[in-house]
């Protein structure tokens, strides 16, 4: 066992990479839940995004087109969920589960001819000032553009929810859909748009796994990250800033256990790889004592006649 082989700076740099898929998926789901919709299909949308992005990137040789295709794929799949829950007024928990099962099936069907192929690599940005900073230079710099976009997205969601009219309407719909309806806001339309935004974000997160983090396509490769993203939204008490914190915590645990595996710690690999899931449970337990933060209309069906 050689723990000195673990370098803190490199560890933090790979933490940023490990946290990015969760950041995308969680911030998307946060918007969906703030609009009062519980979409448990994050895992399904992520894996669909992962394969859509992978196929597009391999065929066009452009990672950026890949990410775009992933966002579109995720949004299209989420549209199914929107149809079910907003127009057919189906139970959101059941519909979300259906979406995950369906997405897993769709993705492995689409990905049949793509096992074992390497995708085009996503270019790294070298930001002049950041990379020269002593110590944290290696942590913050020389990442691909998606990491920075992810951080920007979190900031944007935070600002929009807090300071803009759109954010206010979205929150009104999530807190009390009947009141929002009475004020003349289109509850269903707002929710469908929010669901599609969440789908696009989950798709991007999935594509980040298949194009950057792994980078390869294997069936079921998201391995529960979508569910962890759902847990993170609870952890974050539905606030954008805390999503970052949670995602880094999760990324840190993931990276640390991988490093411990590589360093040859005397614990079998299988037990180490349980740790991200166990930590998620522990964090959920700690955070759920802090209740009543959830949007008041979360998971409730809206129908104008009732």
């Amino acid at each position: 066992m050689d723990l000195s082989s673990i370098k803190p700076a490199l560890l933090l740099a790979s933490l940023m990479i490990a946290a990015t898929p969760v950041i995308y998926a969680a911030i998307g789901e946060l918007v969906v839940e703030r609009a009062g919709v519980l979409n448990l299909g994050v895992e399904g949308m992520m894996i669909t995004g992962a394969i859509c992005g992978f196929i597009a990137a391999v065929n066009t040789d452009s990672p950026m087109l890949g990410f775009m295709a992933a966002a579109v794929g995720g949004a299209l799949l989420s549209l199914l969920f929107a149809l079910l829950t907003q127009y057919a007024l189906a139970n959101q928990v059941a519909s979300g589960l259906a979406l995950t099962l369906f997405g897993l099936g769709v993705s492995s069907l689409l990905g049949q001819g793509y096992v074992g192929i390497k995708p085009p690599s996503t270019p790294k940005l070298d930001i002049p000032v950041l990379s020269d900073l002593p110590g944290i230079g290696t942590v913050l710099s020389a990442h691909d553009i998606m990491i920075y976009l992810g951080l920007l997205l979190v900031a944007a969601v935070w600002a929009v929810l807090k300071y803009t009219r759109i954010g206010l309407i979205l929150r009104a719909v999530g807190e009390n859909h009947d009141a929002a309806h009475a004020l003349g806001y289109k509850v269903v339309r707002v929710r469908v748009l929010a669901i599609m935004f969440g789908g696009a974000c989950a798709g991007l997160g999935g594509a980040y796994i298949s194009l950057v983090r792994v980078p390869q396509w294997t069936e079921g490769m998201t391995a529960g990250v979508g569910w962890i993203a759902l847990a993170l939204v609870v952890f974050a008490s539905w606030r954008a800033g805390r999503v970052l914190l949670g995602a880094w915590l999760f990324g840190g645990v993931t990276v640390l256990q991988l490093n411990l595996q590589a360093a040859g710690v005397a614990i079998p690999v299988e037990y180490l790889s349980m740790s991200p899931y166990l930590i998620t449970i522990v964090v959920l337990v700690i955070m759920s004592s802090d209740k009543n933060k959830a949007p008041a209309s979360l998971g409730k069906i809206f129908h104008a006649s009732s």
Partner: protein
Amino acid sequence: MLRLEKRAQPSKQWAALAPVLAVLITMVVGGGLFALLGKNPFEVIRTIFWDPLFGEFAFYYRPQLLIKAGPLILIAIGLSLGFRAGIWNIGAEGQYIIGALCGAGVALTFYPLDAWFLFPMMILAGALGGWAWAMIPALLKVRFGTNEILVSLMLVYVAEKLLAAMALGPMRNPEGHGFPGSRNLQQYESAHNAELFTGSGLHWGGITALLAVICAYILLNRHILGFNIRLLGQAPRAARFAGVNPNRLTVFCLGISGALAGLAGMYEISGPSGQVSIDFNVGYGFTAIIVAFLGRLHPVGILLAGLLMALTYIGGEIAQSNMNLPAAAIQMFQGMMLFFLLAVDLMANYRLRLTRAEVS
């Protein structure tokens, strides 16, 4: 203009018709999907739904039906109790694995014991294992208000890792020349969950599933506990006034579903599967969610839905080997069924009304 109007009472006819309609729509849309994949849709549908029962090699496939339906029904019955009460255990796959590990653990510990009481002990261990695994989300929910959906699902991944650790470590066959996987329980007389009638595919798991259907039916229709479960699901506030303790029901529902999933896992590992191996679990715990909904959360409905879903599994395998249909297509097919069911369900709760556009 078409307008939706909420029904005062959910329509019984529509509720019964919805699963049938959903299966039919899935056949049509699925057929379209298979046509897109370049297969003859009629042939695929016939292969999936007809050949396993009445085709040329049906004598070989028919026993498979009970082997696959058993665990699905067993798990789905447990899940349906919770779903009715609004308690969402979606980690049945994990409880299934732990049940199997506990059952196999008992058998392997006493190897090569030849005694009649070994198998009952394994049954007990399997049920207890699944129960204990389900108690984690149950107690966390009751004590801390933690979301049981997320916790039970996280535990699936933990259970999968544990299964891998067991297959490679403590439970590995000492005479297996270093290959991963345990001793084969099928060759271990007193631990083997053998077929009860040759060629029927019926083992103790099938019997237990049938018992579970009957017990669940009695519980839901004739017992105050079943009434309370339904009450909590449909009107939580009324349930509170009627003196129903939601915490106790949470523990009960999660416990029962965990124990049944554990039993299913134990019967599987000591029978059809035979071995603790990395790829032991094949997603019964997740498919059972579809079965529970397709069966309308009703015990008899679940019995039928479980048989139907088992049919798609077997038919899917035939279509895979004979017609080169990808395995994932069947998974998608099953997912679609749940989708359409949820969509068709709209008609049970709402009524379509034709209204003239008015100027208000």
